[in-house]
């Protein structure tokens, strides 16, 4: 096997086995997402909203989970190594910063796929939900996965300096982005006009608009979707590299444990 591929897969192996052996991480995949799903969908059905709103909530939850798991797994892999005082050893091994990021993101992708399958099965069984347009759905989810990876790169960059604090921030950022991106509502209706141009430049807004458009409730801008996704990814990559090199130069990497 190619050395780089082996190092990437090492992170997948680690992530999968950590989940298998850790109750908290199992609940993160098999319990919490289901509780959140039903908390929102029960509320919407209680309000007697039409089916489009219910479907928007379900699609929004799916997209948000996809983004969340990629970002969280990237930061968790880093933080767990820090907590177990193995981070210094990890960085002294031949794994590169991008192999670490890609490997842990793939591990997060596996978890995201598990949760999406659970969501699809449960919502079909309870609400008769089926994906309205698989093409739009897959493209929307793919862009949100990319947004999760972008966020993960930012958080790892912060982590080289802030250590476990990056872990705390990594819980806040996806929720902030979800709020600003209007996952469960229309951004035009809720936010003031002056804020909309900023919100539209977030890497997640257009992807959620795309998902919502499949039930007639979103208005995606495809050019902005691509430009923001690629643009933010490039910025995150450069930021991560800059912070890594700075940490290596200033001795922060050597003091990570």
């Amino acid at each position: 096997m190619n050395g780089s591929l082996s190092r990437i897969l090492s992170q997948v192996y680690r992530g999968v086995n950590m989940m298998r052996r850790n109750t908290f991480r199992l609940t993160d995949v098999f319990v919490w997402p289901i509780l959140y799903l039903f908390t929102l969908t029960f509320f919407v059905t209680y309000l007697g909203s039409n089916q489009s709103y219910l479907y928007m909530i379900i699609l929004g939850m799916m997209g948000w989970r996809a983004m969340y798991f990629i970002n969280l797994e990237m930061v968790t892999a880093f933080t767990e190594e820090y907590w177990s005082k193995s981070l210094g050893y990890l960085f002294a091994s031949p794994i590169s910063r991008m192999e670490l990021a890609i490997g842990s993101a793939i591990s997060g992708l596996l978890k995201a796929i598990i949760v999406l399958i659970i969501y699809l099965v449960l919502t079909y069984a309870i609400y008769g939900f089926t994906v309205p347009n698989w093409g739009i759905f897959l493209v929307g989810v793919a862009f949100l996965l990319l947004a999760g990876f972008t966020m993960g790169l930012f958080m790892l960059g912060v982590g080289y300096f802030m250590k476990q604090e990056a872990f705390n921030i990594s819980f806040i950022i996806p929720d902030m982005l979800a709020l600003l991106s209007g996952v469960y509502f229309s951004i035009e209706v809720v936010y003031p006009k002056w804020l909309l141009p900023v919100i539209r430049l977030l890497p997640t807004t257009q992807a959620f608009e795309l998902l919502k458009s499949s039930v007639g409730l979103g208005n995606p801008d495809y050019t902005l979707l691509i430009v923001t996704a690629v643009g933010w990814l490039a910025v995150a990559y450069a930021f991560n590299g800059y912070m890594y090199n700075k940490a290596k130069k200033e001795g922060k990497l050597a003091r990570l444990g």
Partner: protein
Amino acid sequence: MDDAISVRNGSKTYRSGKETVIALDDISLSVKKGEIFGLLGPNGAGKTSLISILVGILNPDSGSAVIFGKDCVEETQAVQSSLNLVSGFSGAIGSLSVEEALTYYAMLYNVKDSKKVIARLLKQMNLYESRNWTAEDLSSGMRQRYFICRGLLNDPKLLVLDEPTVGLDVESAIDVRKIIRDLRAKGHTILLTTHNMFEAEELCDRIAFINHGKILAIGTPEELKGKIISQRTIEIHCSMEKCVAEQLKGMKGVKAQIKSPQIVHVTVDSYTKTKDIMRALASCNGEIYSVNEMEPTFEEIYLKFMNNKGGKK
């Protein structure tokens, strides 16, 4: 080229608030292939900075560090593939079993036939029966052996051992030292840091004393002793101490002092005086119980170096 490690004019400073801390101050050293090289110095002497540069997680401000011909900054991944690290302060991922964790680490180094390699190492370190335990379940001695297993996964040409016996009981420390000697016998180059002077003297082919970022001296343990000791002390246990002291009095380069009844300490400035001392002993009538050369311990040598040449800034 016989050097496993070659550091030339390596310097590193850190910023600590408004202060600049010199971690390495124009350091140069080389470690030969297949030797155990000790890096000794107090905490904050610069050992960790030097090791961090060698393992590719810290860039020097100036100078170069080369391992087996590869530059630690420019060819980091190639350097990292050729070495491994065992630290007494390292942690282990608690949730994974010993075997799973080693499989994970083997993937980091792209180890071929990793299953076989792991089984062999676990057997070699007497951990095979505990392979399904998590690292949290291991005793400190077993954990250290597990770290050594991890350090040997890629059959490294250079093994960096950072206080490998810290916190271990006597039996486990003896085991670890035996493993280190075996590794040298198999041709591994070993860079060892330790605060245990007995261990350093026993294991190391050569030693560098380091303090305040400077190398104070490099040599074999015997050479280092020779550099700091200009005199030898011989303890004579006999029944005619006064006579012996009197006979040696006035002899050039020799000082005799009665330390206690029946004990004379004789300080000489060279090995050539031994015959004179024996002659003096023979000329006195009485019993000679023992004659011993009082060698300073390596700890005393270390302290002398630190205090004389770099202990005070």
